[in-house]
C-alpha cells in the first residue's frame, strides 16, 4: 500500500491512463478477432504490441512503487502477451475474451494494491486466468526463423533482431508480402519529429518490421534503414515515401546481392555508432532486445497531466480577463466617439479591442475543453463489471456500448460512474431473467443490456436499458403502501408509480443479494443527479424491459443560466431547471401557496423563502404582474416568484471550495459585471432544504 497521498495520487493517475488504454485495446482486440481480413489482422498485431507495452509500463510503475506482487503478476501477463506476439499462442475469440478478463483483473489488482485493498483471492483468481491461457501455449513449429536469412540479412544483423522481429518477418513472408528498406538521413535535431512522421506513414503502408542504422550520411546527420513489409505495389510504395527523400530498395526473399550488400555492414555500423555523439548514437542504436526494453519504458503518451484545480484557476483568471476585455471594448467605443483621432486609428482601436475580447473568450472556451474527457473508460469498466456480474449470477448477457466518445466534464464523468454501476447491477441482478425463464417467455436466452450516450443540447443523455422482466407496477404499488410512501386508497398514473422507486428505502427485491440491494437505493442515484444539475427518468414495460435515462450537463463550468433578482441580490439558475417563465396576476399570488399550472395544482413560493433569507411573502408588484418561473424538480413542478427577470446568458460556474457541500441548494457562484457575485442555485436542493412537498 502506498501511504504517501500525493504519491498515491500520482501513481493512480498514471495507472489510470495506462489501464484505460489497456482495457480499450483489449476490447478492440476482441472486436477484431472475428475479422479475417488482412487489415484487421494488421490492426490486431499493432494492438497486441501496444497491450504488451502498456503492461510492461504498468509493471515498471508497480515496481517503482514497491508493489511487488502486482509487478510479478504484470510480468506473468506480459510473458503471455509476448508469447502471443511470437505466435506461441493463437488468438481466437475465446482467447480475446480471456485476455479482456485478465486486463480487468490486472486493473483491479493495480488500483487495489496501491490502496491496500487487493485481497489474496484477487491474486489467486488472476493467476488462475493466466494459467488457463498458458495451458493453450504451443511450441513453435520452426526452430529458427528463416525469414531474415532468406531476405539476405547478415549473421551480425540477424543477431540484432529480436525474436519478435524475426517472427514478424516470417509471418509476412508466409503472407507473401513484399519487403522494402527505406534509407534516410536526418539531422540530429530533427530526428524525433521526422522519424515519427516517417514511421507513421510506413505503418499506413504495411508493417514496420525494424529500424537499422545506416552509415555514411555526413557529419551532423544520422542515417536509418527502415525495413517494412507491405501488400502494395512498388509504384504505390515509391509514391508514398518519396516525400522523405530517402533511398528505397526492394528486398527479395533470396540472397539478393544488392540487399545483402546493403545490410552486410553491421560491424562497421557498430564502430561508427560507438564513435558518434551520444545523443545521435542513442537515436541510431540498433533495436536489439535491450533497446526494446528501454523503448517500452518510455511513457506511452506525449501529453502532460495537470491537476483539475489548476485548470479551474486558469479558467477563473481567463473569465476575469474576459469580463475586463468587455469593459475595455466598451471604453474603446466611448473613446472613439469622443476623440479626435483619425478614422484609421479609430478603426484600429475598435479592431484590436474586439480581437482581444474574442481571444479571451476563445481561451476561456478552450480551457473548458481541456476538462472534457470521454465516457470510454467509464463505459468500458461498466461493461466489464456487467459481464463479470452476469457470469457470477450464471446469466448470459450481452452488453452493448455506444456513444463512448461522448465528451463530458471530468468531474461529471467521475460522478456518474457510481449511478451507472448501480443501475447496471440492478439490471443484471433483478432485471434480467434466468435463461430458462427467458426461453419460456419467447425471448433469446442471452439477454441484452445497452449502455448508450448522446448529446442533446447542453446535456448528455446516458441510457441504460435491458430486455429483462421490466418493473412490476403492482409490486411497486404494494411496496409503496407498505413503507408508507402512499396511502392504500391513492390512485397514481404509470409514471407516478414508476417514480416511487426513487423513494428512500424502496426496494422490491425480495432479498438483499450480494450484488444489489446493499442499502444504497435509487434515491441516492437521483440525489446524485440533482447535485449535478441533472435528472433521471425511468421507462418500463412489464415483460419487455426497463430503460433508465440519466441527463447531466456536459460541463459543470459553463452553463446556460437564467439570472433573476430577489431582494438586493441576483441569482443564476440552470435553464435546464426552468420549464416556463411567467408573469402572475397579483390576485393569483397574494396569500397563495398553490397555483394552477396546466392541468395541475403546483406549489407556489417566493425565491426569498426558498433561500431562507426572509419570509416576507411574494415580491410586491405595485399592482403589476409578478415575475415567476416554473421550476422542474424530479419531474415535479414548482412556481417560484422573483422580483425581476434579468435574462439568459452563458456563465462560468465557480466552485465554493471545500466548504461548498455544506450549502444546500447552492451549486456554485458566478462573477457578474460590476464586481457582483451571484449564487448559482440548485432548485432541488433548495426545495428539499425548505421542506416543501411537491
Amino acid at each position, binding site marked *: 500500500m502506498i501511504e504517501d497521498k500525493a504519491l498515491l495520487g500520482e501513481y493512480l493517475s498514471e495507472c489510470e491512463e495506462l489501464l484505460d488504454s489497456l482495457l480499450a485495446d483489449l476490447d478492440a482486440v476482441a472486436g477484431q478477432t472475428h475479422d479475417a481480413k488482412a487489415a484487421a489482422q494488421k490492426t490486431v498485431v499493432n494492438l497486441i504490441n501496444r497491450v504488451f507495452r502498456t503492461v510492461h509500463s504498468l509493471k515498471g510503475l508497480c515496481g517503482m512503487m514497491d508493489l511487488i506482487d502486482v509487478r510479478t503478476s504484470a510480468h506473468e501477463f506480459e510473458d503471455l502477451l509476448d508469447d502471443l506476439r511470437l505466435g506461441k499462442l493463437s488468438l481466437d475469440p475465446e482467447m480475446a475474451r480471456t485476455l479482456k478478463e485478465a486486463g480487468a483483473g490486472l486493473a483491479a489488482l493495480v488500483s487495489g494494491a496501491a490502496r491496500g485493498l487487493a485481497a489474496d483471492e484477487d491474486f489467486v483468481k488472476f493467476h488462475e486466468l493466466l494459467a488457463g491461457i498458458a495451458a493453450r501455449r504451443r511450441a513453435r513449429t520452426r526452430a529458427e526463423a528463416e525469414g531474415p536469412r532468406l531476405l539476405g540479412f547478415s549473421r551480425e544483423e540477424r543477431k540484432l533482431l529480436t525474436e519478435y522481429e524475426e517472427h514478424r518477418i516470417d509471418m509476412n513472408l508466409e503472407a507473401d508480402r513484399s519487403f522494402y528498406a527505406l534509407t534516410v538521413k536526418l539531422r540530429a535535431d530533427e530526428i524525433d519529429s521526422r522519424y515519427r512522421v516517417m514511421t507513421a506513414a510506413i505503418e499506413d503502408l504495411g508493417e514496420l518490421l525494424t529500424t537499422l542504422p545506416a552509415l555514411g550520411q555526413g557529419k551532423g546527420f544520422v542515417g536509418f534503414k527502415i525495413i517494412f513489409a507491405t501488400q502494395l505495389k512498388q509504384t504505390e510504395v515509391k509514391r508514398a515515401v518519396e516525400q522523405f527523400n530517402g533511398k528505397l530498395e526492394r528486398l527479395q526473399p533470396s540472397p539478393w546481392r544488392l540487399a545483402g550488400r546493403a545490410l552486410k555492414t553491421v560491424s562497421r555500423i557498430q564502430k561508427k555508432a560507438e564513435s558518434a555523439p551520444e545523443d545521435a548514437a542513442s537515436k541510431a542504436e540498433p533495436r536489439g532486445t535491450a533497446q526494446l526494453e528501454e523503448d517500452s519504458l518510455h511513457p506511452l503518451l506525449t501529453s502532460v497531466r495537470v491537476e483539475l484545480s489548476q485548470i479551474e484557476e486558469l479558467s*477563473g483568471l481567463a473569465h476575469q480577463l474576459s469580463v475586463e476585455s468587455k469593459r475595455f471594448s466598451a471604453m474603446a467605443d466611448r473613446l472613439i466617439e469622443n476623440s479626435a483621432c483619425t478614422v484609421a486609428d479609430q478603426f484600429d482601436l475598435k479592431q484590436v479591442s474586439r480581437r482581444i475580447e474574442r481571444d479571451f473568450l476563445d481561451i476561456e472556451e478552450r480551457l473548458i475543453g481541456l476538462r472534457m474527457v470521454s465516457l470510454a473508460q467509464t463505459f468500458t469498466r461498466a461493461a466489464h463489471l456487467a459481464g463479470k456480474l452476469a457470469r457470477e449470477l450464471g446469466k448470459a448477457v450481452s452488453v452493448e456500448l455506444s456513444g463512448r466518445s461522448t465528451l463530458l466534464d471530468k468531474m461529471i464523468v467521475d460522478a456518474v460512474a457510481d449511478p451507472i454501476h448501480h443501475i447496471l447491477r440492478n439490471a443484471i441482478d433483478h432485471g434480467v431473467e434466468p435463461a430458462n425463464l427467458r426461453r419460456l417467455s419467447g425471448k433469446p436466452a442471452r439477454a441484452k443490456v445497452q449502455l448508450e450516450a448522446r448529446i442533446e443540447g447542453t446535456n448528455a443523455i446516458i441510457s441504460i436499458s435491458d430486455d429483462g422482466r421490466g418493473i412490476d407496477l403492482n409490486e411497486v404499488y404494494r411496496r409503496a403502501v407498505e413503507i408508507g410512501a402512499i396511502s392504500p386508497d391513492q390512485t397514481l398514473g404509470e409514471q407516478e408509480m414508476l417514480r416511487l422507486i426513487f423513494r428512500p428505502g424502496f426496494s422490491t427485491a425480495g432479498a438483499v443479494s450480494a450484488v444489489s440491494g446493499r442499502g444504497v437505493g435509487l434515491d441516492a442515484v437521483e440525489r446524485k443527479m440533482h447535485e449535478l444539475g441533472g435528472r433521471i427518468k425511468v421507462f418500463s414495460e412489464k415483460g419487455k424491459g426497463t430503460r433508465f435515462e440519466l441527463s447531466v450537463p456536459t460541463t459543470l463550468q459553463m452553463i446556460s443560466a437564467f439570472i433573476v433578482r430577489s431582494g438586493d441580490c441576483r441569482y443564476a439558475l440552470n435553464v435546464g431547471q426552468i420549464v416556463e417563465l411567467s408573469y402572475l396576476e397579483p390576485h393569483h399570488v397574494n396569500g397563495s401557496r398553490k397555483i394552477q399550472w396546466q392541468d395541475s395544482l403546483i406549489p407556489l413560493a417566493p425565491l426569498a423563502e426558498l*433561500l*431562507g433569507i426572509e419570509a416576507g411573502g411574494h415580491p410586491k408588484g405595485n399592482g403589476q404582474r409578478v415575475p415567476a418561473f416554473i421550476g422542474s424538480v424530479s419531474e415535479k413542478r414548482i412556481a417560484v416568484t422573483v422580483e425581476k427577470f434579468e435574462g439568459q446568458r452563458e456563465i462560468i460556474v*465557480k466552485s465554493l*471550495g*471545500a466548504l461548498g457541500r455544506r450549502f444546500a*441548494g447552492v451549486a456554485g457562484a458566478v*462573477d457578474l459585471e460590476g*464586481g457582483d457575485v451571484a449564487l448559482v442555485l440548485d432548485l432541488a436542493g433548495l426545495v428539499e432544504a425548505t421542506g416543501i412537498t411537491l
Partner: protein
Amino acid sequence: MTAEKPGRGFRLGLIPSTGGHSGLRDDKPGLVSFVVFGVGSQSFAVDVNNTEGVVDCPGVAPLPRPPAGIVGVASVRGRITVVFDLSFQDRKPAAQGSRLILIRGDAQIGLLADRIDSIVGLKPDKVKRLSKKRAPLNELADSYLIQHRRQVPIIAVDRLTTLGA
C-alpha cells in the same frame, strides 16, 4: 496600515509592522508573526503564515441558511471566497467589514475585519494555551497572545472549516 482593492492585494510579509513592534517579520529567527485585527469590540489574531493577504471586501452574496459564522461569498481575484464574520461570537451584529483577510489553502476562506490593528512578532513562548473557561472561543481558537493587556485569541484556521457543522 493600508489594504488594497480586490485583485491588487499584497503579501503580508511585506507590510511594515506597526503598533510599537519594530521590524517583526515572519522570517526573523525565533519569532512568529500574527495579524491582529478587530471585529466590533473583539480582537483576534491569525498566524501570518496562514494568510494570503488583505483586500477591501467586495460585495458579499448571502448564502441561504448559512452555518453560524458564515455570511456569504465574495469574488476576490477571480476566486470565490467564503466570507466568515467572527462577530457572532459575542452576539454583536455582523461586522460591517471593510477588509477581508484571505486565508491560505484550498478552503477559499476570508475573514471579515472591521480593522487591521497590527502585525506582531512574538517568541513562541508568548503564545499561551486558551483556558477552557473561554469556551465560546474554543470553537475557533486554542491559543492567545497578549496585546495591550488583553487576551487576543489566535484563530485556528483548520477549525474554520468545521465551524457550525
